[in-house]
């Protein structure tokens, strides 16, 4: 791995984790959303380092573009309210959650460091295809040959979600008017 890639890796790692902290600890939803955009963009850079160009582009387009614009739109639609950083009803829940979170992180890091890191390639056909035609072509080849049925089913999911959103929007308007 070249030195520049390692530097880029560490910069985007630090920025992604800082963005994650910002999502959790920001007082206002707008700051959380902007921090989440920071995290998502830096995750896209990590995807590029992992040689997943198509996923990186989709991350920027779908997540940092469409989804976060929708979030910001809803935040501005709902307007600014009084910000209580943490709920004032259950302080025990806050410390318990932080303790359990630290426990979860320690457990995951323990098992990750315990398991070997010697991962090697098992799908040599994909490897050969990737070396020959490039990553995006290899991804498309896999998607349209091995995973055609799931790919064809996803539009139904999106249509159902769209119908659900329209139905929810209509019913609240009807009950108000």
């Amino acid at each position, binding site marked *: 791995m070249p030195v520049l890639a390692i530097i880029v890796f560490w910069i985007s790692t630090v920025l992604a984790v800082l963005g994650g902290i910002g999502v959790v600890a920001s007082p206002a939803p707008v700051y959380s959303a902007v921090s989440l955009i920071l995290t998502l963009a830096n995750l896209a850079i990590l995807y590029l380092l992992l040689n997943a160009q198509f996923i990186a582009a*989709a991350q920027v387009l779908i997540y940092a573009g469409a989804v976060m614009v929708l979030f910001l739109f809803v935040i501005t639609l709902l307007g600014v309210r009084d910000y209580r950083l943490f709920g004032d009803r259950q302080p025990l829940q806050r410390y318990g959650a932080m303790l359990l979170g630290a426990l979860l992180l320690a457990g995951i890091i323990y098992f990750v460091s315990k398991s070997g890191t010697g991962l090697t390639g098992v799908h040599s056909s994909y490897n050969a295809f990737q070396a020959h035609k490039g990553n995006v072509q290899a991804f498309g080849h896999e998607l349209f040959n091995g995973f055609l049925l799931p790919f064809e089913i996803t539009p139904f*999911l999106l249509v159902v979600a769209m119908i659900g959103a329209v139905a929810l929007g209509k019913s609240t308007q009807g009950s108000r008017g």
Partner: protein
Amino acid sequence: MTPDASSYLIISAILFTLGTVGVLVRRDPLIIFMCIELMLNSVNLTFVAFSHYLSSADGLIFVFMIMTVAAAEVVVGLALIVSIFRTREDIDVDQLDEMHG
């Protein structure tokens, strides 16, 4: 330090833990929703890292499907949040207890 598979997994673990703590701690439904997105993205990073180090495209396909499901989830979830916010003024999830959950 040269990054390897476990460094990506540890980044993913950190982001997932942040999302979990956010879901448990915060009371604003929009921020809880963003923390869920953070958890989904940390899992996506795990999939992409394994896909790279195992040199298999299956993880990338999974990430593609997760992105589709997340987009659908965001659409429905934000519609629900907007409709809840329209009918009531309070935004604290602790106060959304009509169903005695």
